[in-house]
């Protein structure tokens, strides 16, 4: 009997280990290929110069880096205030039916395929202002709102009741308790949520195809067309040129590093904060 039990126990462990490897192997494969292929053109020129003419070697993706920065910046300007305030509303005020409806709505937004958000941005912004940073930023902002809402709401709900009560017991009005005590207490988790929302949209490609067009110029303003790092990867990978394939790999590596730095940065930041709380 005992041997049978041991055998079952061991086979479960083996099964779990197997599933883990099945999960991890493709991931390692992806990361490995990106690093190996990406290192070929991972040089200073990649991030400091715009693209060169079609067939010549060299050139970089400065236009796309600037484009991504601008689009993401616009996205955050749109989604941070809306998401933050909605998160506060859901955590502190919303009760009953209305809250349920809003939560369902947010979940629905989170579930909309990003290309549809892109088309939506096309119909209301591109049609009026043309392909632009604004249109791309609007699409990415819209996509990131649910993440900001949820992380803000979760962070505020994690504030211990003693802290809230202590705030109220000092005769502080409710809105100030929320803004200076609750939000203050949850500050690092809220900021971490912002950064993760940003990391989430920085790699979005589909909505950008229909909103920022993706040329070779460095965008000059809110209303000019732009390119973005994930969009460059998409365009160059589909091209017939070897030099462009290499740049696409390197751009992928750059994107991977950005995402990694942001995610690890958030973890590290929260860890430091956790010591004090």
């Amino acid at each position, binding site marked *: 009997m005992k041997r049978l039990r041991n055998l079952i126990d061991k086979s479960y462990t083996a099964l779990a280990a197997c599933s883990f490897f099945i999960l991890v192997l493709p991931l390692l494969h992806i990361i490995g290929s990106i690093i190996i292929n990406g290192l070929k053109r991972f040089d200073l020129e990649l991030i400091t110069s715009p693209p060169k003419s079609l067939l010549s070697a060299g050139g970089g993706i400065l236009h796309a880096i600037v484009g991504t920065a601008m689009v993401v910046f616009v996205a955050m300007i749109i989604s941070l205030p809306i998401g933050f305030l909605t998160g506060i509303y859901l955590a502190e005020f919303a009760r009953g039916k209305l809250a349920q409806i809003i939560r369902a709505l947010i979940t629905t937004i989170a579930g909309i395929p990003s290309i549809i958000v892109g088309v939506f941005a096309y119909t209301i912004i591109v049609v009026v202002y043309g392909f632009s940073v604004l249109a791309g930023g609007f699409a990415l902002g819209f996509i990131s709102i649910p993440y900001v809402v949820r992380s803000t709401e979760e962070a505020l709900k994690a504030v211990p009741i003693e802290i809230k009560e202590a705030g109220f*017991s000092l005769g502080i009005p409710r809105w100030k308790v929320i803004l200076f005590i609750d939000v203050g207490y949850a500050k690092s988790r809220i900021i971490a949520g912002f950064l993760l929302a940003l990391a989430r949209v920085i790699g979005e490609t589909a909505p950008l195809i229909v909103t920022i067009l993706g040329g070779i110029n460095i965008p000059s303003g809110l209303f000019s067309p732009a390119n973005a790092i994930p969009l460059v990867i998409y365009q160059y990978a589909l091209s017939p040129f070897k030099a462009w394939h290499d740049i696409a790999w390197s751009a992928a590596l750059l994107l991977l590093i950005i995402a990694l730095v942001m995610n690890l940065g958030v973890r590290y930041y929260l860890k430091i904060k956790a010591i004090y709380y």
Partner: protein
Amino acid sequence: MFGIKIETKDLSVWYKDKQILKEIFLSIPEKQITAIMGPSGCGKTTLLKALNRLLDIHEGYKVSGEVLLDGNNVYDPKVNPMEIRARIGMVFQKPSPFPHLSIYDNVVVGLKLRGITDKKYLDDVVKEVLNKVGLWDEVKDRLESSAAKLSGGQQQRLCIARALALNPEVLLLDEPTSALDPISAAKIESLLLDLKKEYTIIIVTHNIQQAARISDYAAFLYMGQLIEFGKTQEIFTNPKNELTEKYVEGRM
């Protein structure tokens, strides 16, 4: 006999359908320490939070009857609960300094968020109340560091200082020493004996010995009812009710 600072008249509290406090009539004497004793779940904390209208911030509570502060009903619709809470300070079971604020800001956060910004005045308040709670010498060189770095006992004294900064008339304490080591607890007890010269103090406690040591008056609460109230000495040496006797002798 002392003047009456807080009086409850026919005070009942429901949480949803459950009645937690049943027709409480209680007169809290001014500048004395009144202990509220009773087994877990008897409504002690709810009674405390009914006094400064802290129950208002939670959903599902219903209060009936009156709580008179200097003769005026704090549940009068014309009364602003924030003013009541500023006049009746509160300290909680678990030390709850705001960890994201400095020691200095923990003390003055109530004043600042109530609109007082005069730096000189705030500096004076910090020094005065930290002195009062015996924390000034321990923290005067690190007022800007995080309050979360203090020890549990220091944190609890900081919370008392935070409540005192608003210059309240009454201080409510909800088992303030139950999460502390004996030495820190003793410090808090002697601090309360000092503070009663200036403040009316109401302390909820599980600890019968603590009630006997520091309180002048004691109330015994059992299943939401006020069983007995009187001078602490009377309650402990000559209780009128059998339940009270059982409780103070530790037989409950």
